[in-house]
């Protein structure tokens, strides 16, 4: 690694840092355009209702109101959605969750737009609310999804995994642990709320600035509901104030709404969500109910697992079928088994709607199985960390889906690191000896995880990048994958500079723009570094070969004889040529100084019918230890220490990687103890940041983290991914620590305060 100039260097800094510390970075809420109109949304006050009357006339009659729209302004009533086309840009015939958008008003001022929304005549006929997954499956439950979607009532989809036959193994196993866990909804709570700004173009098209994660998908959806060819919709991504999976579908709706209003009025239109709106109307992490049976022999060797899960999709499918698929593929955890069956049902309810959120199903699945593994270790009177070391995946083992792991596995090393750094053995013994009635009791707990790289069987997994040498010898880089704070712009920039052997400052990455970059699918699943990074590398290699050719021509030698020193190209007679000279010569030779490259993840295959196949081409691994203090008077739990080790392959941009690690853990602490987004009969109970508490600076302990560097041959310079999985281990580690402190197992996340009488 030592000959690399940038990859893995601790000194690397974010390319966006300066703009963000000075306040110069423009987010969509900072952008205004001359003649711009303000949009406000009429939202459903009920979780489930039929729309009887929707009359815009009173709004349009108000001073300052310029236009208003409903579903009727879109092709096919604005029907969209992938993988299930069940959603509408604006509610059509029915509303299915409280806060669902029904109409949008554009006006000269925000106040006029609000008055317009108030004035719309809306009459709803309330329908019975389905607020519970079991109730949703009742044959008499009112159907939630539109008739156009094929479902079995409110059962959207059933996902299965079949590896061997666990039944006989469980029947014969001397120890079987059977438990259920209830994992509640979580809100993304990105600091910047949703926003979109549309600008009508003279050609009848529209340009969008939106804080969406995936500008190409946004472009395609907006074009289809507006009836425009995709080229006439341009989607540009400004700086984005955090997404964590949360800025996809909700932004497609908002983008389509402002785009339509911009086309109708011929003026720019901007919509920015209030916080209450954001918390009410955006999709959540889906709630999961997980029932597990784990069997082990007397010596503590895991034998088989059988898992049944219910996933609360809410009113629309969004990404829940995909997240439920990922949950299914990880439901029995990072352990060796002889057989595993998983059955997951994706269910429609009126509990808001759910979609992608960091960890994408594995956050919930891992929380459940890691609590269950702890319970099993307890039953066997085994130390939970040693029990994991005995059973965890190692290179050459088969995963719970029956696939051989051929690449290096850093999981044992992660477990050993967190054990040694946290002082596990001493603390575990000390806390076990605390008096049962002590007012403050401590506990220490562990969890480990694996996480499939990339989209896996969820979709084609590719990215495209371009590089161009400009007249001033700077290099322009584009990628179809985007950056919303996770640092991929820095990663792409450093990979291009590394591969081309140039100074970092030479490479300028453009902001994502569907007109200048090339479609690379969604920026999800923490796939930017591997897939996007490899695309950059492929592109830079192509361009680099042309420059080497030019240098060889200058030095009258073979390309292989050229060596590099800094930016210089040096021939066999030791004559140095500057980067500029070589570029000039390449131009003179007529070589093309722009290149495009594509990279696709090695093919994987999953058969949905039989529940068999290979879900992912590779995995990342990790382990975390949490230490907590439980106050029996208040019933509150404070996390007093966290140790985290993650095997993410080669770390390309260490500063950024640690940022992801700490940030992911903070969200895991919230998920464990603070953040339940609760519904009562479909009505959200917490729609502000006072009642919905996300961790603040004093809620978090010091965190000690490390990366265990293994090598993944397919990754750029051996890199794997990390942004999502780093949060996966936190909540169960905390739950397991709390169990040691109190001796009582709470099988629910977030864990509510448990005051003792």
């Amino acid at each position: 690694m030592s000959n690399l100039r940038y990859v893995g260097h601790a000194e690397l800094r974010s390319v966006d840092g300066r703009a963000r510390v000075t306040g110069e970075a423009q987010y969509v809420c900072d952008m205004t355009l001359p003649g711009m109109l303000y949009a406000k949304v009429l939202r459903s006050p009920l979780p489930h209702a039929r729309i009887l009357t929707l009359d815009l006339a009173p709004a349009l009659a108000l001073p300052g109101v310029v236009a208003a729209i409903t579903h009727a302004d879109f092709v096919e009533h604005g029907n969209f959605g992938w993988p299930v086309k069940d959603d509408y840009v604006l509610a059509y015939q029915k509303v299915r969750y409280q806060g669902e958008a029904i109409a949008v008003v554009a006006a000269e001022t925000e106040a006029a737009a609000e008055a317009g929304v108030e004035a719309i005549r809306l009459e709803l006929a309330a329908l019975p609310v389905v607020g519970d997954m079991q109730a949703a499956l009742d044959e008499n439950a009112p159907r939630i999804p539109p008739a156009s979607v094929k479902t079995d009532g409110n059962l959207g989809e059933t996902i299965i995994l079949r590896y061997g036959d666990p039944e006989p193994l469980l029947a014969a196993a001397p120890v079987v642990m059977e438990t259920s866990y209830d994992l509640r909804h979580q809100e993304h709570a990105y600091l910047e709320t949703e926003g979109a700004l549309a600008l009508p173009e003279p050609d009848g098209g529209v340009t969008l600035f939106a804080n969406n994660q995936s500008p190409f998908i946004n472009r395609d959806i907006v074009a289809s509901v507006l009836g425009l060819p995709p080229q006439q919709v341009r989607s540009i991504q400004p700086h984005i104030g955090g997404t964590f999976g949360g800025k996809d579908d909700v932004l497609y709706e908002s983008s389509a709404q402002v785009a339509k209003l911009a086309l109708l009025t011929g003026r720019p239109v901007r919509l920015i969500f209030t916080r209450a709106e954001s918390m009410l109307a955006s999709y959540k992490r889906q709630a999961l109910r997980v029932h597990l049976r784990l069997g082990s022999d007397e010596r503590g060797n895991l034998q088989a697992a059988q898992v049944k899960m219910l996933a609360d999709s809410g009113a629309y499918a969004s990404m829940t079928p995909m997240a439920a698929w990922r949950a299914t593929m990880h439901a029995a955890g990072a352990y060796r088994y002889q057989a595993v069956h998983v059955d997951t049902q994706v269910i429609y309810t009126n509990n808001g709607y759910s979609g992608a959120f960091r960890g994408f199903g594995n956050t919930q699945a891992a929380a459940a199985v890691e609590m269950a593994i702890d319970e099993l270790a307890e039953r066997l009177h085994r130390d939970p960390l040693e029990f994991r070391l005995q059973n965890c995946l190692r290179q050459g083992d088969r995963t719970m889906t029956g696939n051989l792991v051929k690449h290096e596995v850093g999981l044992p090393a992660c477990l050993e690191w967190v054990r040694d750094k946290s002082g596990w053995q001493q603390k575990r013994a000390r806390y076990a000896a605390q008096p049962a009635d002590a007012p403050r009791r401590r506990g220490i707990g562990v969890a480990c995880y694996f996480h499939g790289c990339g989209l896996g069987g969820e979709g084609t997994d590719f990215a495209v990048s371009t590089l161009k040498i400009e007249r001033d010898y700077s290099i322009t880089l584009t990628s179809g994958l985007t950056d919303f704070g996770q640092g991929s712009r820095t990663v792409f920039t450093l990979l291009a500079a590394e591969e081309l052997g140039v100074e970092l400052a030479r490479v300028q990455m453009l902001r994502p723009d569907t007109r200048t970059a090339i479609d690379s699918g969604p920026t999800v699943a923490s796939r930017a570094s591997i897939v996007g990074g490899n695309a950059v590398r492929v592109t830079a290699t192509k361009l680099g070969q042309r420059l080497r050719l030019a240098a060889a021509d200058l030095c009258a030698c073979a390309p292989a004889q050229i060596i590099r020193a800094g930016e210089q190209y040096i021939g066999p007679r030791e004559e140095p040529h500057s980067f500029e000279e070589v570029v000039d010569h390449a131009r003179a030779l007529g070589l093309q100084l722009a290149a495009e490259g594509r990279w696709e993840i090695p093919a994987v295959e999953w058969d949905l019918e039989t529940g068999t196949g290979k879900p992912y081409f590779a995995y990342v691994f990790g382990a975390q230890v949490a230490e907590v203090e439980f106050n029996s008077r208040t019933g509150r739990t404070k996390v007093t220490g966290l140790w985290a080790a993650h095997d993410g392959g080669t770390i390309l941009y260490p500063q950024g990687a640690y940022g992801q690690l700490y940030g992911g853990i903070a969200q895991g602490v919230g998920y464990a103890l603070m953040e339940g987004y609760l519904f009562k009969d479909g009505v959200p109970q917490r729609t502000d940041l006072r009642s919905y508490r996300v961790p603040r600076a004093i809620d978090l302990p010091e965190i000690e983290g490390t990366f265990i560097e293994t090598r993944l041959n397919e990754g750029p310079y051996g890199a794997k991914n990390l942004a999502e999985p780093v949060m996966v281990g936190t909540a169960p580690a905390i739950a397991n620590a709390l169990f040691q402190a109190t001796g009582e197992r709470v099988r629910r996340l977030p864990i509510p305060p448990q005051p003792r009488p």
Partner: protein
Amino acid sequence: MLHEITFTVNGDPYTLAVYSQQTLLKVLREKLGLTGTKIGCENGECGACTVLWDGEPVNSCLVLAVEANGHAIETVEGMSVGGELHPLQKAFIEHNAVQCGFCTPGMLMSAKSLLARNPQPTELEVREALVGNLCRCTGYVRIVDAVLDVAKNQ
């Protein structure tokens, strides 16, 4: 109703007509075009809108612009002088205390005011000073490190 107010922002004097109900946040962002101060909730919950009011951090979404009459306001735009970044800004970059950057302007304001009143804070004092500033990206680790680093070197 319109009121005329006179105040300074980042040292520059302004005389403006503002409505009674307009918040300082809206006036800074919409009238003065100082969009570095962010808007996260308009309800005093997130700290993204933190500015300094005679040196003290306030949530600019919770104060009315009319109240700013006669006061000195400082925003993130006033932190760097002639293109030279403030030590806190440099430390935020250096420690990667900035991810999406949406909390950053408010964080910088709270941190600046902390160091002015307590040049050598403990880690806990830093965390307490930042308690009103939410960050969803960083887990606060690097932000706290950056502030402590500036304290150590000043």
